[in-house]
């Protein structure tokens, strides 16, 4: 391959690949809230107490966060200062502005898992006034992961993410060892980033 032709091919390949980024993804990035958040002294002190408490209790959550941060996974998540929803003993702290709701708020992700049975309560959900929502459910049984999932660490657990960028929807599947067979925690969300969904799950499982 001659240098000029090769470099032309390379430029064209990169341009075509870059042009294939979906418009919905650009839209999503454009409309996130990037304003610096105010940190009051009280909030900083509270955060310090929470970190100290987590460290004293074994620091499972902190361990997960540290590993992710060291590995370069962005920590660009909204603070989990919204409502806390509960599902079979797991407490899910939601991002600021989220409130608990009793109705289901997300449709299943296309190509996602087809679990055999739910475990315990059916689901727990929260939503924001801006259209964001998050729903958690537990499933049992052996599940086949879809080929479109990508692996992610969720604290000390293995998770898999599936996204539908065009619809701003994402699903996180986390394998949870349990007596009598494995369980799956499934969090489905709308208008939340992968980092935010992973943070919600890591905190609940920590």
């Amino acid at each position, binding site marked *: *391959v001659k240098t000029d032709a*090769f*470099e032309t*091919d*390379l*430029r*064209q*390949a*990169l*341009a*075509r*690949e*870059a*042009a*294939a*980024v*979906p418009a919905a*993804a*650009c839209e*999503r*990035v*454009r409309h*996130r809230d*990037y*304003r*610096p*958040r*105010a940190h009051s002294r009280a909030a900083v002190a509270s955060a310090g107490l929470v970190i100290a408490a987590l460290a004293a209790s074994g620091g499972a959550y902190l361990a997960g966060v540290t590993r*992710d941060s060291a*590995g*370069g*996974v*962005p*920590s*660009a998540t909204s603070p989990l200062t919204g409502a806390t929803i509960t599902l079979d003993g797991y407490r899910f702290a939601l991002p600021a502005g989220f409130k608990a709701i009793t109705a289901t708020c997300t449709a299943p992700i296309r190509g996602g898992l087809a679990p055999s049975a739910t475990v315990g309560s059916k689901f727990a959900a929260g939503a924001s006034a801006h259209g964001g929502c998050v729903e958690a459910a537990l499933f049992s049984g052996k599940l*086949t*992961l879809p*080929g*479109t*999932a*990508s*692996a*992610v*660490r969720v604290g000390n657990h293995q998770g898999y*993410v*599936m*996204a*539908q*960028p*065009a619809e701003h929807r994402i699903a996180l599947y986390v394998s949870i060892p349990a007596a009598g067979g494995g369980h799956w925690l499934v969090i489905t969300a709308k208008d939340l*980033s*992968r*980092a935010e969904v992973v943070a919600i799950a890591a905190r609940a499982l920590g």
Partner: protein
Amino acid sequence: MRMQWLRAGSRQEFERFVLGRSDQLLRTAYLLAGDLAEAEDLVQETLLQVARRWHKVRGMDHPAAYARRILVNAAIDGAGQRGRRASELASAATFRLEDRPDYRAERALRAVDTQAVLLAALARLSARQRAVIVLRYWEDLPEVEVAAVLGCSVGTVKSTASRGLARLRAAVGAQASSGPAGAPDHRPVNISQRRSR
């Protein structure tokens, strides 16, 4: 900080900056990371950092260059984590993309496609080589600006680009001489993104 941000009216300036630059940042991030979700996270982290320092960044000659530098270095720093994730994905017993008929078909199609060969080879370069190639051939930056982004000398940029291009050429050459059977490796984490387009 927040009061200063609002009082100076710089919020609107920052929002204009995001509107004008985020698409390019996202496309660059996608080429660097090879995964759309990773790219979005990289851009989000970059713009949050820019927002935190906007009172300084707004006075710079080239705020976009500052944002690009944050993005590229975040992508390089996070490359190890992405690599581990990709290999974890490829080795999971329940997740063998090689066994999927649609994947084999996609791979066969790619074998006759120089663009696909180039992109697959690009994904196998080191994070730094990939950054140099993307900045030179997608962002069209001169070597001196690539050096500024990466915080290294122009000589290092030249040698890194040379090694990266040699590997890309070798991949294309191998594909041309061996045909479909010699198709290069894939980018497993990117398959879903391709299907969803």
